[in-house]
């Protein structure tokens, strides 16, 4: 709770949160406008080619040719983690392709809640692909809530099942390199995607393709090609241009020693 002596900013706002509120409003407005444009069938920019996402079908195709399974992990994030939310959409795509190609999908989990959702996502994907009979709940496995026990268990699974494609898409920590190096020894095609900046270098070093940060958030729009989802990504990019302009403005003002008013507005 706020202290009694605190007074609302501009009569209604929590002190210090005025600028973030308007930034949020502008962001939502940009996304909304782009969604409406997309719904009205007006032209909106396309998302650039993302090699890591293009490679997913290739990786599953290769696993199919080799008759070996595909492994998918969403990392250690909880169901409320935005990266995990983005992962559900990717898992749906991967599961659908696996169902279409009749390739076994091994999906490992560290979080019980996430596993329950993943089961539903995969079941639905097999249903949409017209292959509900091929859905095998035993291939969706819970390993351990402990980070390294999970990592050890997955490495053991690598040795037994020898997946030919290894897709790591979500929130990863120190286990990222264990998974990626383990996959590299198997000769699997590896695609790593995370917004955890401290793990991106490990994926870059050990994977064939890496989705850096925000690229993973664009995945659902990119893969589905749905204009409405693409609209949200375009809105996000427009917001980025706004932030960029603000950085330039701040840099210029800092050089002429006039940043006080800008800082005053942004911290109000």
């Amino acid at each position: 709770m706020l202290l009694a002596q605190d007074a609302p900013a501009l009569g209604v706002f929590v002190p210090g949160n005025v600028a973030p509120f308007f930034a949020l409003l502008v962001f939502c407005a940009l996304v909304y406008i782009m969604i409406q444009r997309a719904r009205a069938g007006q032209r909106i920019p396309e998302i650039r080619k993302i090699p890591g996402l293009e490679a997913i079908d290739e990786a599953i195709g290769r696993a199919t040719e080799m008759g070996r399974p595909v492994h998918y992990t969403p990392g250690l994030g909880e169901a409320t983690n935005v990266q995990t939310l983005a992962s559900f959409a990717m898992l749906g795509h991967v599961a659908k392709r696996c169902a279409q190609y009749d390739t076994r999908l091994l999906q490992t989990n560290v979080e019980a809640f996430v596993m329950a959702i993943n089961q539903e996502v995969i079941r639905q994907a097999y249903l949409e692909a017209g292959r509900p009979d091929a859905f095998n709940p035993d291939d969706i496995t819970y390993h351990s809530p402990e980070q390294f026990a999970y990592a050890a268990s997955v490495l053991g699974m690598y040795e037994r099942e020898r997946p030919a494609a290894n897709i790591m898409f979500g929130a990863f920590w120190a286990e990222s390199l264990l998974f990626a190096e383990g996959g590299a020894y198997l000769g699997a095609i590896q695609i790593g995607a995370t917004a955890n900046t401290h793990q991106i270098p490990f994926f870059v070093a050990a994977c064939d393709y890496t989705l850096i940060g925000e690229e993973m958030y664009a995945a659902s729009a990119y893969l589905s090609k749905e204009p409405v989802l693409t609209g949200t990504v375009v809105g996000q990019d427009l917001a980025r241009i706004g932030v960029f302009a603000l950085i330039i403005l701040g840099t210029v003002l800092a050089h002429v020693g006039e940043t006080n008013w800008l800082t005053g507005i942004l911290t109000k």
Partner: protein
Amino acid sequence: MRKEFPMLLTVVAALAVILSQFFFHIYNLGWLDVLDKWSNLMWAIAIGLGVINLTLIHGKKIMRRAPGYYNSIVLLLVLYGYGILGLITTTEGFHHKWIFDNIFAPMDATLYGIIAFFITTAAYRAFKVRTWEATVMLLAAMIILLGSAPIGEAIWGYWGDVRSWILNIPNTAGMRGIILGIYLGGFATALRVMLGLERAYLGGVGGR
């Protein structure tokens, strides 16, 4: 209703948090505190549910003598044995702590330590002068690597300064760009979930 109700809950909870974050009088209603307590309660319930679920799944496996059922026996023994020991002696109790310090801790640290081996082979395999971008990455990595340990400065007195420059200037600039992009992308994803545009978490897939 199976999908609409969870979506409605998502939107209501998100709005409560967002409005409390920005509006003084709504903040003072104490919704955040209430949600925080609910969240804590759900954590506790989830742990209880997890224990029941594990017992049911592995109990059935043992009864059916399914392949690898002996692993299930070990799991249940450890789950209940260590749990009950903790309840009796508390986590600071001698036996509970001894098991933790001498079995769990070394095993966990060992697996983390394996990263040192893996990172060496990954660096050996990945850092090649294939393209000029790869060469820049290789050089930066080597400067940071040797500069992070005292050996860099023992070889050349300014090694640490070069490392600091790379970390403070190019790294900070790049990292800020990535972080900004991540937060904007993350927020757009959260917005898609709130608006019901992205429903994969409810078991829908979408896409072609």
